[in-house]
């Protein structure tokens, strides 16, 4: 089993595998998106308190989840890379980062878009949004660090170390922000508290989350294939690729 998995740790094998998987993910992702948006915008009923404005959660919640899942995935790849010293792991970690950062930003954007009509302000310092903002900064830090290092081996290892350090701190940060928020909270309720959910809403949210997940994997695979091309350019198998003729 490990032998089977380790085969795909070679950039060449992974390049081919990822290339085969990507079209499937694109197809699945597209279907999930269409289904999710259909149910979310056409089937799910109007919310009693928030009217039609609540429909933003079909984008906000999946974006938040993905921003957190991707950060954890980066930590996992970092751990694997530092433990087994595989080059591919570092490449995957940096391939995931931009997508994670984008989802973190979208979570903040849609959160603000949701908060303004509901609570009157573009930004209220509620615990979830504040933690999401810090997560966004963590992504930017990783991207800044890896962009500043030219040597690929050093870049991968340094990025992996920092990804792990960040991930270990995320629960502490989250906990501290919740603590901080309850300290300073008046009677205000969390902006990102979802309305009590009809089951169509839950289904739509789930479909959109899976859609974003498929998208993230597809984009990360696509990006890592490009990174592999850049790193392994003088390998014979790269030179003889059909797309490189």
């Amino acid at each position, binding site marked *: 089993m490990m032998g089977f998995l380790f085969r795909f740790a070679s950039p060449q094998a992974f390049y081919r595998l990822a290339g085969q998987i990507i079209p499937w993910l694109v197809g699945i992702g597209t279907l999930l998106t269409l289904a999710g948006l259909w149910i979310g915008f056409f089937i799910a009923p109007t919310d009693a308190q928030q009217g039609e404005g609540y429909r933003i959660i079909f984008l906000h919640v999946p974006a938040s989840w993905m921003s957190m899942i991707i950060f954890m995935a980066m930590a996992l790849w970092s751990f694997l890379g530092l433990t087994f010293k595989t080059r591919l792991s570092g490449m995957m970690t940096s391939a995931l980062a931009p997508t994670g950062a984008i989802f973190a930003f979208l979570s903040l954007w849609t959160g603000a878009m949701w908060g303004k009509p509901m609570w009157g302000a573009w930004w209220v310092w509620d615990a979830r949004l504040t933690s999401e903002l*810090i*997560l966004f*900064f*963590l992504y*930017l*830090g990783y991207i*800044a*660090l890896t962009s*500043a*290092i030219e040597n690929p*081996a*050093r870049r991968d*290892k*340094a990025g992996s*170390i*920092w990804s792990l*350090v*960040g991930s270990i*701190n995320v629960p*502490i*940060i989250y*906990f*501290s*922000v919740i*603590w*901080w928020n309850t*300290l300073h909270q008046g009677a205000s309720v969390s902006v990102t508290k979802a309305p009590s959910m009809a089951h169509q809403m839950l289904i739509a949210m789930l479909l959109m989350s899976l859609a974003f997940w498929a998208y993230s994997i597809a984009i990360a695979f696509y990006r890592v294939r490009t990174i592999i091309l850049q790193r392994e350019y003088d390998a014979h198998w790269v030179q003889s690729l059909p797309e490189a003729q």
Partner: protein
Amino acid sequence: MNAFLAILRRDLRVAMKRKVEVLSGLFFYLVVATLFPLAIGSDLDILRKIAPGILWVGALLSSMLTLGRLFEADWQDGTLEQLVLTPHNLSLLVLAKILAHWLLCSLPLVLMSSILGLMFDLPLDYAWVMMATLLLGTPILSCLGAIASALTLGLRGGGVLISLLVLPLYVPVLVFGTGAVESLAAGLGVQAYFSILLAILLPALFFSPWACAQALRVALE
């Protein structure tokens, strides 16, 4: 242990020759603390309320600015490579460097915060709590910042990059540090805050030198 003390003594001696670096951090803290009343106004009620936050953030920023130089001097003159190559435990040597840096740069900030508290008319018992949280918190900041400093060794844009990396990680320390004073103001206990800070400090002291050692090896390859 001898190696630990040797590095500690050496770093302290070297820094004493370059007092400017140590004093500039202190001066930065003073200036920042002065800017806020100038910006916000001299209403003592407001200043008293915001004092713990400002004094904490000021100390945090000042200690962050000096962290960039933690490994730089040794790296530039080749001492760092020697340290990595010695048979001694690199983590231990790094801990010595972090301790030296903290004694030189952060401990003065902790002491100065009480004086700055006067500028904000901060009551004495609040000032004590604030100093205690800074005493527990600044070593955590040093430990976390040291990792960033090790990772960014020799990179362009080092100082700003360290700030960007490390500020998100500083948030819990800041929250619990200032939270203690808030809690005191609300008439509640501060015990929990010190416990939490200690609970963060001890693993940090253990984990950070090790992570720094890994990062230094990566940077020096």
